[in-house]
């Protein structure tokens, strides 16, 4: 910034100061004008959208025609909806399996990135490839790899003499494939966030631990992991929320037409999509389902923040 030196604040004369006050009032007006696009958009898509969604959840509404108010009927129906139960259980299963997988792999990759070795920059580029590619394409590749009859994975299994697995034909199979895809698509960003967190840890801690005879594994668990608190917390929270909202992977892997296997992987958002936009559309009920997911995500976030206050230490006061 070469202009920095040439621009200096002169002492404002009294006349100018009065002008300045007027300017600042005008400045506030300009400021509100600057905020109009954002606030208007939020008012329409976030606040009106949310209110409309809540209202819809008390109505019986289809894809066509006006909505009819039915009180709490949708919420009563939620309780006995076994399909929603299936979707919730699947979503929880994906969270429980996929989130730890993402965290462990990105911790491993972040640790590897700390090392200085030949081909380091190539390795980094490779690590980020999955994050910059079209998820649709990646999901299809995995679908092809795990295809029952002609897929490469089953061919490998057959070649060692074992019997092939119907990957998309069981809960376990679907969980394995979905987890691998989620892992592949979403470990890159956590890796760089954890890596940045590791860079912030003072080297003196490592020096002291080494002098006390701690090996690399011990140093990782006693220093790196605890001091990574805030980054780790952020990674776990964002990954959990994104898996709670999982849609693309299951939708592309288990299309709605294949009704037999859809239930092995149907998530809450997928169920919501089916209710609202497939067939005749039960939008009122779907709105109630989306509020269940909404509350679920909020509760998970709040629980995480409570846990964070207890377990995550920021800076020196920890």
């Amino acid at each position, binding site marked *: 910034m070469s202009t920095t030196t040439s621009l200096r604040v002169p002492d404002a004369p009294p006349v100018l100061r009065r002008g300045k006050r007027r300017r600042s009032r005008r400045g506030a007006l300009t*400021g509100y004008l600057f905020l109009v696009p954002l606030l208007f958009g939020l008012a329409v898509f976030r606040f009106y959208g949310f209110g409309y969604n809540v209202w819809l959840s008390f109505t019986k509404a289809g894809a066509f025609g006006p909505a009819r108010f039915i009180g709490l009927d949708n919420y009563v129906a939620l309780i006995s909806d076994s399909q929603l139960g299936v979707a919730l259980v699947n979503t929880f299963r994906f969270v429980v399996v996929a989130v730890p997988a993402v965290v462990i792999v990105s911790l491993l990759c972040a640790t590897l990135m700390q090392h200085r070795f030949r081909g380091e920059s190539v390795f980094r580029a490779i690590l980020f490839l999955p994050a910059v590619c079209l998820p649709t394409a990646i999901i299809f590749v995995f679908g092809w790899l795990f295809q029952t009859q002609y897929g490469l994975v089953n061919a490998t299994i057959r070649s060692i003499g074992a019997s092939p697995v119907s990957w998309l034909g069981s809960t376990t199979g679907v969980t394995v494939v979905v987890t691998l895809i989620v892992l592949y698509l979403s470990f890159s960003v956590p890796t760089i966030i954890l890596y940045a967190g590791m860079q912030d840890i003072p080297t003196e801690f490592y020096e002291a631990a080494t002098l006390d005879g701690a090996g690399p594994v011990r140093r990782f668990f006693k220093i790196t992991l605890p001091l990574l608190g805030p980054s780790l917390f952020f990674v776990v929270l964002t990954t959990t929320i994104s898996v709670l909202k999982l849609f693309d992977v299951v939708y592309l892997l288990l299309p709605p037409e294949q009704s037999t296997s859809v239930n092995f992987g149907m998530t809450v958002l997928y169920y919501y999509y089916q209710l609202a936009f497939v067939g005749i559309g039960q939008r009122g009920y779907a709105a109630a389902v989306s509020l269940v997911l909404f509350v679920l995500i909020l509760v998970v976030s709040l629980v995480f923040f409570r846990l964070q206050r207890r377990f995550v230490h920021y800076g020196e006061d920890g």
Partner: protein
Amino acid sequence: MDFHRVRWWTYATVIVVGLLVLAPFAWMVATALMSTTQTLQATPSVIPSPPTLQGVQEVFAKLPFLRLLGNTVVVSLGRALATLVIASLAAYALAIIKVPGARIILVLVLMLIMVPGDIFIIPSFSIMAKLHLTNTLVALVLPNVFDVFGVFLLYQFFRGVPRELIEAARIDGASHLRILFTIVVPISRGGLIALAILAVLNEWKELLWPIVVNNDVDQLTLGPGLALLRGTAVTDWNVLMSAGALATLPMIVIFLLLQRHFVSSFARSGLK
């Protein structure tokens, strides 16, 4: 003292991880160059023999691929630009003008970052329907350009702009808009680039919203467009992989050209 000494197992792990990440890409390209019959062998061959562009031709026959690619470029750039303009204006009002009530708006922004708004597809859809915007490219981006995270990101950058520069420019009679574009934006370049990249990457990840709001294939981007290739009964995997490879290639090239910016924008998505 070097605490990250490279041992043999470091190399071993790096090579294994690297190959595992590359393997799906390799398999995608290999399958893309196979004929349909080659993909349907009891014992699949890993190398296409002979390599053929039959799959690629099928992609162009079944999908308006170039149209989808063009749409992707337009929609991604449009989303990035609109997000930047809306977020910069708002962040300027909050961080530099500091309008009365800025704190409340900032709290609102932070709250909305934590609240998942993108799961309410039905309201957004009916808003688009009321505006007669369904089946347009505008519909793909409009609900997503009011990016509260982006506002917060730029707010942090704009706060770092030296106060004296702004004051001096004000005394010289520069308008706020002029100050935003000639002083604040250049200084906060890093933040703006990061936000633009995140907006583009998020657009590439969209699937649910596009398939709901646009059912005309001519108004879709590559991600949801490719989804249409998945057969209901039979899937030609070589066609699907050709489409995937064709769509992914330009993205990889862009990434490799702008790698430094991509990596720093990932780091910025950490909300710190």
